[in-house]
Structure formats: structure tokens, C-alpha cells
């Protein structure tokens, strides 16, 4: 098992390296650079100024030269400075947003799991019951309603009309500390959290329902029941473990997806996370930031998948790695 994990981690290295080459190449081949867009903002600024800055930033060098400069700094952990957020280091820009994205991602994942799995199981055990129909209806609702629309509705009714939840941001004032800050953040996270978690909840619920239904109909469950095993044991010992396998696969990917940030949700709630930063960096051609975020996402997705593979072997003893 350990051998397997080490082998997998070693494979990460060439994969990440390939990722840097591809993303860097694409980022720099895109027309324009970080200063092209800025240069139109103020016609009083002499375009020569931007030409000098381009030279200073090395943007006029050939792409391989720029790549080499970037990668040799990056392997030493230096991701450079943003070209748009004048004078700010990439690490600093990402740090603050990464924490926000992490909290929001875990919060919505927690909501998803807590809500989806029990309801999914219940629906499967009592198919065609009132709650099952309700859950199915909710599932289709959750999958079909666009994120931004649900977010705006939530803001309009729960925040502006009823005043239960704050509409924007991560905290109500700067300078909160301790538990006060924790609960304040949690309060702010609620609306974006359910908005982000809605589609996931619906998906997981549907998966869980069909998986459990499927497993419940299989021969070994009939055997287990026949040998007089209690219904609880049938469910938890035999059914759930088998039903969870596809869910784990989903979650492996989900880690990357959640942490890559949810652009639309972040935008609607002005929740400063990685998603909006990534998007704006791509449109602004701020390639040091683009590269750093792409690397983080690459690492997270690889780790997510590795974790999923490890969890398989825990949930399902038939799966072994050596």
C-alpha cells in the first residue's frame, strides 16, 4: 500500500511538469499580454511607458526563455509577482483567497454529504414513498436551476427581504477575532454554501438512491437477509460499502472542483476566492497568477484522485494495491 502511494506520488512529478509546459504555452500564446488591456484605460498615459514595462517584465523575450525563467523560480517556491496587481506577490494574492475557497468548499461539501447521503438511502429504502418523490423533485430542481439565479433569489428573499443572512462578503466588519469571527464567517458562508452545494446535493442524492437500490436487489443481499442478518447490518455492512464506491470516485474529482472555486457563486456573493481570481487573471493575461493557480489545482486534483483510490481499498476489501 505504501509502496503504491509512493509510486503514485512519484508519477505526479512528470505530470505536473507536463502541466506547466502546456498551461504556460497556452497562456503565452494567447493574443495580448498583461499590459495590453491596461493600456487602454487611460489615454493620457504614453504607450511608450507600457513598452518599457514590457521590456522590464521580460514579456518581449521568446516564450522558452520566459518559461525557463518561470520554472527555475517556481521550483524554488517563488511564483513571482502579479503583473496586474502591481507589486503584489502571487503567493500573497493566493493565500488569502485560498483560505476563503477552502472554507467555502468544505462547508458546501459538508452540507452535500450530510443532506444527500441520508436522503439518498432513505429514498432507496422507501422507493415511491412521498419523501422519495419529494427528494426526486428536489433533485431535478437542484440540478436544473442555474447557480446564479438560485444565489440571487436566496439573496433577495433571505437577505434583503427577511434579513436573516448577510448578502455579501465573508465577514461583517474587519477586525473580528476568535469565536465571534468564526460564527460571523459561518453566517456569511451559509448562502453561498447552499448555493454552491445545491447541485452537488442533488447529484449525490440521485447517485446514492440508485446505487443503494441496485445493491439491495443483488444476490448477496438476499443471502445476507436469508441467513437472518438484521436489516441494520444488511444495510450498513453490506449495502452501504458497496454503494459508496461510485460516490467516492465522484468526491475525488469534487475536491479539485470545489477548490478551483466557484466563479459564479463567488461573483454573486462577492466572496473573494480562487475562482474569480483565476478568471480575472486569465482575461488579464496575468500569467504568473494563472500558472500558480493551475499548479495548485493540478496538485489538488491528483491528490483527490489518489485519496479516492485509497478510500476504495478501505471501503471495498476486494480492491488491493501492491
Amino acid at each position: 500500500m505504501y509502496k503504491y502511494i509512493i509510486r503514485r506520488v512519484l508519477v505526479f512529478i512528470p505530470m505536473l511538469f507536463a502541466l506547466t509546459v502546456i498551461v504556460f504555452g497556452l497562456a503565452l500564446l494567447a493574443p495580448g499580454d498583461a499590459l495590453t488591456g491596461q493600456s487602454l484605460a487611460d489615454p493620457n498615459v504614453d504607450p511608450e511607458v507600457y513598452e518599457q514595462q514590457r521590456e522590464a517584465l521580460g514579456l518581449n523575450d521568446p516564450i522558452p526563455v520566459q518559461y525557463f525563467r518561470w520554472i527555475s523560480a517556481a521550483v524554488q517556491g517563488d511564483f513571482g509577482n502579479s503583473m496586474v496587481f502591481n507589486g503584489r506577490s502571487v503567493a500573497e494574492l493566493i493565500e488569502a483567497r485560498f483560505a476563503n475557497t477552502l472554507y467555502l468548499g468544505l462547508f458546501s461539501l459538508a452540507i452535500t454529504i450530510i443532506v444527500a447521503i441520508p436522503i439518498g438511502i432513505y429514498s432507496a429504502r422507501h422507493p415511491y414513498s412521498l419523501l422519495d418523490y419529494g427528494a426526486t423533485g428536489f433533485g431535478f430542481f437542484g440540478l436544473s436551476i442555474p447557480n446564479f439565479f438560485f444565489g440571487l433569489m436566496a439573496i433577495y428573499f433571505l437577505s434583503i427581504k427577511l434579513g436573516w443572512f448577510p448578502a455579501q462578503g465573508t465577514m461583517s466588519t474587519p477586525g473580528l477575532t476568535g469565536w465571534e469571527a468564526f460564527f460571523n464567517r459561518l453566517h456569511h458562508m451559509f448562502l453561498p454554501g447552499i448555493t454552491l452545494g445545491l447541485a452537488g446535493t442533488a447529484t449525490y442524492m440521485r447517485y446514492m438512491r440508485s446505487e443503494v437500490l441496485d445493491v439491495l436487489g443483488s444476490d448477496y443481499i438476499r443471502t445476507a437477509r436469508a441467513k437472518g442478518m438484521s436489516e441494520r447490518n444488511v444495510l450498513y455492512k453490506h449495502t452501504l460499502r458497496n454503494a459508496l464506491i461510485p460516490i467516492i470516485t465522484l468526491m475525488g474529482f469534487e475536491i479539485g472542483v470545489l477548490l478551483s472555486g466557484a466563479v459564479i457563486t463567488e461573483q454573486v456573493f462577492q466572496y473573494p476566492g480562487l475562482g474569480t481570481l483565476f478568471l480575472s487573471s486569465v482575461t488579464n493575461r496575468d500569467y504568473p497568477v494563472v500558472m500558480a493557480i493551475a499548479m495548485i489545482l493540478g496538485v489538488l486534483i491528483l491528490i483527490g484522485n489518489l485519496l479516492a483510490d485509497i478510500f476504495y481499498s478501505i471501503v471495498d476489501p476486494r480492491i488491493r494495491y501492491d
Partner: protein
Amino acid sequence: MFKRVKLGITLLILLFLLGILMAACNSETTDPEPEEPEETEEPAETDESEEEPADEGPQMGGTLTGAMDTAPAGVFNPIFYQEAYEANILDFTHEGLVSQNEELGFEPNLAKEWTINEDQTEITLKLEEGVTWHDGEPFTAEDVVFTYKAISSPGYVEAGGIRTDYAVRLLGYEAFNSGETDEFEGVVAEDDLTVTFKFAEPNVTILKDVSFSIIPEHIFGDVPIAEIPSHPATLNAGEVIGTGPFQFTEMLEREQYVLTKHADYWNGEPYLDQIVWRVVDQSVMLGLLENGEIDFIADPNGVPAADFETVEALDHVKIIEQTDFGYQLMGFKMNHRTDADVESGALNPDNWVPNEDMSVQLIRQAMAYAIDRQAIVDNLLYGHGSVINAPVAQQFWAYDESATTAYEYDPEKANALLDEAGYVDTNDDGFRETPDGEEWIVNLNYPTGNKLREASAPILAQFLEAVGIKIDLRQPKEMTAYVEELTNDNTDWDLYLIGWSLGSGDPDPSGLWKSDAAYNFGRWNNPDSDQLMLDAMKAPEAFEQSYREEKYSEWQGLFSEDLPAVLLYAQNKIYGFNERLNGVNPMPYSFNNDPHLWWVSE
């Protein structure tokens, strides 16, 4: 069974850890700023104003919340900031020696008076006495010298600075900037409160040049220019020091920016205790204005024109509408550059290749007549804008509508002009052919980003097709890619859309329309126009504003006749604010004017 309990426990632990992580992170990042106590206890003066029986005099105290739709990038230093969102903070915290009034004339600010020598090569300014920085240090002429020295110094541009325009005309700029000498002759402190600016040549825009915001020497004096952008006094709330009526004291990055009053402000203690900027999504802004969570929506984007009526209908919200300093245009690519020139970045009008059809004046004029610009303003901007005919901001003394051709919507005339130019429909397909009888297709290019502009493109195409010009409406391009192609104009482009937001300092249009200007994307090459723009800036005649007015009228007439671009519309700025906010007096260029006189009635 056991496994499941374990799973549950793991989950709980995870949640708990998440909680601790969050709590820990917070206590690290945001230590509570000690509230400056002298500001919270309000002494005698408060009572005075409160005792006045209900005659609504200004009251001390209170907090105001403003909203902007995008967070500032975070460089809170006048010499390095780049965008309007940062300006929303800096407008409150930093000041220049002179500022502009409602007529865009310059008036005293940190400098109380000045004398300019005969040939306008020198200006000596007397500074206000008793001005202090937010940290209590006195403001002196040395700060002024330092600020201009900083933007003149070698490495300023490489460090990310773009405000060299304020310094390039100073005496000895070239030598100092290239590092040839350490001697900075351009700005000299005569004594603590007197400063002299010396210019290499007679300077027509002398007051504009001395209007730059001043930064403190006692903070940045020993910091190398390359390190100023990442210096704590540039980035961190509480450490940014200016002379303005408010100090930038606290921030929740990308969410909230808190300005606290500078009680010792030289122009009188501000009424408000705090102004809080919140970053709010455009779609939520109106809801929050309605329920009172935010008090004002102002620069840079204001209230969208489409929402004007909704906001106007709110009882507690007032609206101020004024013309913006910018315009949108449909330009003609009159010339293209050669591949070699694009490669080398050269802008040499002699090498340019005329773009067939678009270089014909009659065609350009016909297109202007074919477009109903008033209809675009009425329908796209809901009437909150104006049709302009000269590329000078209407607020300026230089703007002269009467010198221009109005190009009222007149499809008949458009048809006649096209016929006259020899572009007629010879094969009865409903579209005109070129004089050589070949198929004539004009392409129209436009960028994404500005929703109104995007919406205007198909409308323009329709207007032009209505007079028989076949339009190839290209797919819109993302802004950065668009600008790249617009600049490197060795392509087949004919028509392009772009918008400009002009400065309020001086109306000189040469940066956008002189033939060798990089932003002259149409590559308009008209020697008369170039000459007029030069004349209007030529000393000593141009010291007289009336002379410049004359030259600019002549130029505007020429522009509108030769028509390198159809000016589509100038949008209005719509500011909305809660009626509890009093004392608002926006300048033509900004809402953030004299905030020390703003006050709230509870």
C-alpha cells in the same frame, strides 16, 4: 457498524478542525486596530451643532457606506495606483497642490497661492500652513519635491509606474531619469512652505502638471523606488499616509475598506466619523441601496441607466446625473500599417497603406448619416447620454458643437453620398458594389466587456445595411485579444468599436488623434489636423485660453468633416445616494469631492 461510527467521528473532527483553522486564521490576520479614542469622544463642537433647533445644520459623527462593484487591486499609493477603484480610496486620503473646480479651472488646495513667470517656465507655490500628515508629521515643500523626484527617477516605470506625464516637462527630466545625474532640478523647495517647479520649455498645462497627489517623504524617503509598490505604507490599511480628510485605517481585503476621519485635517475637521467602502456585486447593489445597507453608489460605474427609474422611485434615494468624461466611437481603419512596421512597432504615416473604401471621405460621411445615433441613446442608454460630434469632453471650454457637422440621421443623404462616391448596386442584390463593380463587404469588429457597446454593434450593422452597405459583423473578441489586433493593424479590418475615458486635466486631444499617436487606431493621417493640435499647445500664444479655444474649434470642425470616426454617444454618470447623506457636491469628474463637508442626518 463500527466503521460507520468511525466515519461519522472523522467527519465531526474534520468540521471541528475547520472551525479551529478559521478561528486561528482570523486572530492572526486581523488584530483589532486600536480605535483612536480622540475621535470617538466628541467634544463641545458636537453639542453646538446638535443644539441648533431642528434647522438641519451639519451634524458631527456617523458612518457612511458606499458601494463599488469591483475590489481595488490594492496599491494605495498615488504614484503607483492604476485604476478607478483604487482612486475611490485615494480620493479621500491624498491631495494635490491644486485641484479642479466645477468649470475645470484650477484652484488652490494644498497650495494656497502661486505665481507663474512671464514665459510660463516657472511656477512658485506657497503651501498652506499647518497641514499635517495622518501620522501627525508636518507637510512641507520637501514632500512635494520628493513626490516629483520619485516619478521622475530611473526605474519608476520599470517598477510599474505610469504617471510620468506629470514629470516629463520638468527641467532636467531626461538627464535625471536616465540616471546621468543625481541632481533633480525640476522641483525646488525654496523654504518649508514654498516650492518652485521649473520646466524645460514654456508650459501650457502648467497647473495641470503641478496637480499630482503628494506622498510623504518621511515615509518613503529612504525606500528605493522599486520597493515602493510592495512597501507596507503602500499596501496596508493603517499604514497608508496622506494629508486628506480621511485616513485609510482598516480593510477586509476585497470586501471592505474603512476610511476614518483625520481629525486634524487642515481644511476643517470632517463631520463624518467613518466612510466604509463595500464591494458589492452589481446585481445586488440596488437591493442594498433600497434597504439602507449602503448609502451611495457613485464612481466609477454608478447606477446602470436601465435601473434609473427603479432608483428614482425609491423615496429615500436621491439621484445626481452628469455627463461622463468619455465617449464611444465607431472608427474607420483609414490606413493599415505594413507587416514590417507592425513587427518593429514603428508608427510612420509615410509607410501606411490606405485601406480601400474606408479612406474615401464620402463613404465615411455617408456612414455617419446612415446611423441614427439619437435612437441608440434613447433606446440603449434609456436617454441617459448624449450624441456628440467632436472628440472633446463636453465639459471642457474647448468643446465646440457649433464648429462641427451634426450628422443628423438622414438615410437619403447617405444613399446620395454613396451614389456620388460611385458605390451603387449594379447586380440588384440589395447591396452596393464598389466602383469597379466588385462585391463590397465592410467588416465591423468589436470587443466584449462593455455590454452597451456589444449591444450597439448589431444595431450599427443594421443601420448600415439599410443604406445598402453589406456588413460582415465579426464575432466579438475578448478585450485583450481585440486590442492586440486593433494595434497591430496589418489586418483587413475596416470598422472598429472602442471607447475612451478622457482625463479632466486638459482637453488636448493629440494623444488620441495625432497621426503618429499609438491610440490613433484608425491611422488617420491629416497634416492639417496635426498642425492645429500642435498650434493649440504652442507657447506663448497658447497661454491665452481664447487662442486655444479658437484652434480647437477649428480642429473639431476639421475632425467632423474628415471624420476618422463616428462618435456614437457619451454616457451619463448616474449617482444614487441615500437622502441621509448631505453636503454632496460632485465635481464634473468625480463624486468624491470635499468629503469633509459630507454629513449624515439620522
